Structures are given as structure tokens and as C-alpha cells.
């Protein structure tokens, strides 16, 4: 793992902050896309937690993943306001077009499709996110590559 020392630095920089282990894991996700066993060891070591502790934290929060996500990470809101605005149909369309169900990643790691519960655009649904970009009144064309 060539960049473990960079990750170590990233993680150590969080020491002293409130909720630091979670912040550190978020930073690893941002830097590396997913969390490896090696990263677990680093976080455990820096915050003096057990590996089991870190595993427990990672698996609790939806933002964390131990497997890589697609380069195009599509998230479609599945919550009620977006349901009322048609997110079920939109999700079906996108899912069929990509051949992926919610929570799945294409084998070539090009795309992953995920549900999300509310992006705070509830008056203008259905809402979605593609990587960092937030989309209101989303349509299938907005989301597909």
C-alpha cells in the first residue's frame, strides 16, 4: 500500500477533534474511495481503538465502504418527497439502463448506483447526486453517463 503514509498523515491530522475517528474515515473515503484493511489498522492505531471498534464504526455509516465504488457514483433520493415526485419510476429507468440494482457497482468500476435518503431538495424532486454534483428535478438523461 504505497500511500499508507499519506493516509497516516491524513488520519493523524484529525487527532484532538470531536468525533475524530469518523472524520478520519471520511477523509480516507475522499482520498482513496474506499477503506482497506490497512486503513483500518492505521485508524485503530492512531486513535487507540481496537480493529473491531473501527470495523463497527465503518459498517454503521452508509457513507463508508470497504469496497471501491464506481467512478460515476449515482445516488438517487428514495425518500417520501421524492417518491411523491416520481423517484420510483426514475430509479427503475436508470436501473434498467445501467443493468444495476441499488447498491450495485458495475464490474469495470465505471458506475455505481445507490439510494440516498433526502438531499434537502424536497420541493424540487426527484433529486439525485452524481459524484459531487447535485441535481434537482432529475431525469434519466441527467444521470446516465
Amino acid at each position, binding site marked *: 500500500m504505497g500511500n499508507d503514509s499519506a493516509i497516516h498523515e491524513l488520519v493523524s491530522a484529525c487527532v484532538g477533534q470531536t468525533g475524530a475517528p469518523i472524520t478520519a474515515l471520511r477523509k480516507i473515503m475522499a482520498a482513496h474511495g474506499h477503506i482497506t484493511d490497512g486503513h483500518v489498522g492505521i485508524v485503530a492505531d492512531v486513535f487507540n481503538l481496537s480493529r473491531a471498534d473501527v470495523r463497527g464504526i465503518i459498517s454503521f455509516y*452508509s457513507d*463508508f465502504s470497504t469496497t471501491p465504488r464506481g467512478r460515476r457514483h449515482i445516488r438517487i433520493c428514495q425518500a417520501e418527497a*421524492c417518491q411523491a415526485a416520481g423517484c420510483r419510476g426514475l430509479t427503475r429507468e436508470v436501473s434498467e439502463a445501467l443493468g444495476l440494482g441499488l447498491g450495485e457497482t458495475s464490474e469495470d468500476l465505471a458506475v455505481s448506483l445507490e439510494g440516498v435518503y433526502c*438531499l434537502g*431538495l*424536497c420541493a424540487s424532486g426527484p433529486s439525485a447526486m452524481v459524484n459531487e454534483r447535485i441535481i434537482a428535478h432529475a431525469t434519466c438523461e441527467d444521470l446516465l453517463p
Partner: protein
Amino acid sequence: MSRALVPSETLANALGANELARELEARGYEVVRSGGFGLAWLEPMLVIDGQAYGPVRDLDALEEVALGPVDEIPAIARQRRIVFDRCGRGDPMDYDPAWLLDQLQRSPREIIAEIRASGLRGRGGAGFPAHIKWQTVHDTPAPRKYIVVNADEGDSGTFADRLIMEGDPFRLIEGMLLAGHATGADKGIVYLRSEYPLAAQIFAQAIAKARELGLLENFVMELFIGAGAYICGEETSLLESLEGKRGEVRTKPPVPAVAGLFRQPTLVHNVISLCSVPGILKMSGAAYAEIGVGLSTGSMTFQLAGNIQRGGLYELPFGLSIRELVEDWGGGTRSGRPFGAVQVGGPLGAYLFEEDLDTPLTYEATAQLGAGIGHGGLVVFDDTMDRMQQAHFAFAFCAHESCGKCTPCRIGAVRGKETVEALAAGEYTEDKIAVITELCDVMEEASLCQMGGMTPIPVRSALGIGK
């Protein structure tokens, strides 16, 4: 040179505000990125030299969407904007601390007395009288006390916290500093959901600015970003998460006001609750208590969402009816089909139908229906809504977001989901209804927190099962 206020707010940006700002700049306007007014259907809405335009798609066709002077837009003028009075009217970083510094001279006792007089109740969902928590934190001796701001805003149909943090972050900073001063807490942490990156950026900027202004010399302010868990909006789960752990709900007692973050007395408040504080102190608690009805005092930041013509945020005194909000303010469904149902108060709120629409929006009246106001979000559905599907979703959401600590919620939500599926597939209807009814009782009464405890509310109301 013309001055253009261009909202910098997630929804407006998603609808093209950034591009508009660039173009206006190129055309020689003095562009100010302001907060949003919250009128979603008009976004992106520009205010150029006091004149409002929206929704703006084409700068060359501005007049087609002219709305007149911004303060005369009825959807703004008819609101009672106490929390949102500044929001949308300029650069959020443009802040004069004089009033705040003045207020910080008042004694804690005086401030708590104003809060008591105002009758302010928590806007995060439970509607608990704020002053009791303030007094408890104030009175509990401890080496350290904290203010924790609940900006996890996970309820579908709500975005008030996001709007204020993006549009007037200093309102929250004022609330936090006043609460810290009144309770004796010297550290405040905002727990913000990760789905709100722009709010995070703007609020972080505001903290830096506050530091520059010398407001944080005796107070530590931190911003913490969550990691995707609805349950972390529940205050004890939030505290666990802030301690860097799994967000498993804690049992109460002790309540956070006695032993919260790191087991120290902690004032946990929703963003809007704290943002209501400056307005209360400005007008006096007694004057605030005059607004609204009964024990539902002051203004509520209602948010209209879902299948709605004129969705958005409307800050209004408690007491108007659901119908007024949905029909008069909201203009009915966006699809143009007949009204079907409205879910009030987020995923754990009740589905209400035509016959309930005249209920006034107060804590008391909604409670009568077995519903609640929650964080003030109303999600409108048209008549295509499938009640079984929504009941199924209520269980599914609980199954997805349950922290897993207690049995009724951890297993009950999944069994509920499966039973509704069986029901939808037409199996033994009567038996299944009986099973669901009993399961709802068990979840409501026996769950450790309101996640499992309130999931029966949307289920029962969607299925029309009486309590």
C-alpha cells in the same frame, strides 16, 4: 452599476444559480452571492436592485419572469420571518456583531427567563420546552458543558436547517453563543449531515469569520460532518457519533442536559430552535409568546415538499390549517392531479387525508390526530399514492435506518415490511392486519427510541388502522 443578489444555496445552484452569477459578472453587474429566500418554485430567483425575477432560465428574458419588488412578493410579504429575516438579503459573511455583543452582556438568568417567557419549543421534532433544558444545563455542575447543534436534518421534506446555514450562518452562531453564555457552556459543536456539502463550506467560513471578529475568544466552535445515518438525528445517537463511535442510541436517563457529550451536561438543539433565540431576545419573550396559538408559540418554518406546485419554506405563526398551507400557499399538486395525502412531520409522521386538512398546524391539534409537526415538513402526494406502498416504505425505512440496538425496531421493522408485502400480495388479509396492529403496538411501546416508537404512525395512518 447594478447590484444583483444571486442565491448561493444548494437548490438554486442545482438549478443554475452559479452559471447565472458568472454570466451577470461578465455583463458587468456587481454580483453578491446571498442566501436563498426558500421559494423553491421560483429558484433561481435573482434580486436586481430590489426587483425580483424568478425562476430565471435566461438572462435575456428576465422581464418574462419579473416578480416586482422583492418585499412585495406575497409569498414573502405574508410570512412572519423571524428566523429567516436576514436570509436572502445579502452576503451572509457581511455581519455586524454589535447586537450580539450587547446581548452577551445580559445575565444568564435574564436570558433564560426570556426563553421561558417565549414558550419556545424544540423545532427538531419532539417539541420539548427549550427553557427546561437550558435551566438544567445551567444548574448541573460539571467541569465542562457543551452546546450541540442538531443539523442532521434527515427528514424527507425538510430543508430549513440547510437554508439557514447556507443563507444566514451567523444566525446560528448567534444562537449558539447566546445559549453558551446562558448555560455556561464554552464549546459548541454543529453536527451537520454529509449530504449538505455547501452548508458545511459556508458554515466553516462563518466560523472563521466569527473568529476574526473576536466572537470566539471564550468559546470553541467546531463543525462535525456526519457519515450517513438517519438515526444520528436522534440526539443520543448523535452524541455517540460525536464521540467517534457507532451511532447507537443511548438509554435515558440520564438526559443529555445532565450527562450528554462525554457525559457532561449538554444542550442539544435543532438548528432552527437556536436560530429562533435571537429573534426572541430582539422582540422579548413575551412578545414572541403572543405569536401563534396556545402552547404552540412563535413562528414555525414550514416546508412544503413533494408533489406540490409552490414548494418551499414558509415561516409562519403556528395555527394555520393544513389546507391553507397546502392549497393557498402551495397551490395544490404539481402534477395537477387531485390531492391524495400529505405526510406531516417527516418519515415518522402521519399520512393525513382530505378529511384531516382543516386541522390547525399546532403541536396540540396534530397530537390529537396521533400525528406531530416534527421539523415542520409537509410532503404532498397526489391521488396516485399507493397507501400499501407507503406503509411498506415506512417499515423499510425503519429497517434501513434502525440503529439495531433494540429488538422491536431491529427485527420488528423487517417483519413489518414482510407482513405488508404479504398483505399486498393478498395473503390472509385479516390475520395480517391483526399481526401488523400488534406489531405496531409492540414497536410503539417497547422500542428504545422514537425511531422504532414512531414508525407505527405512518404505517397505521397509511393503512387506516386505528390505534
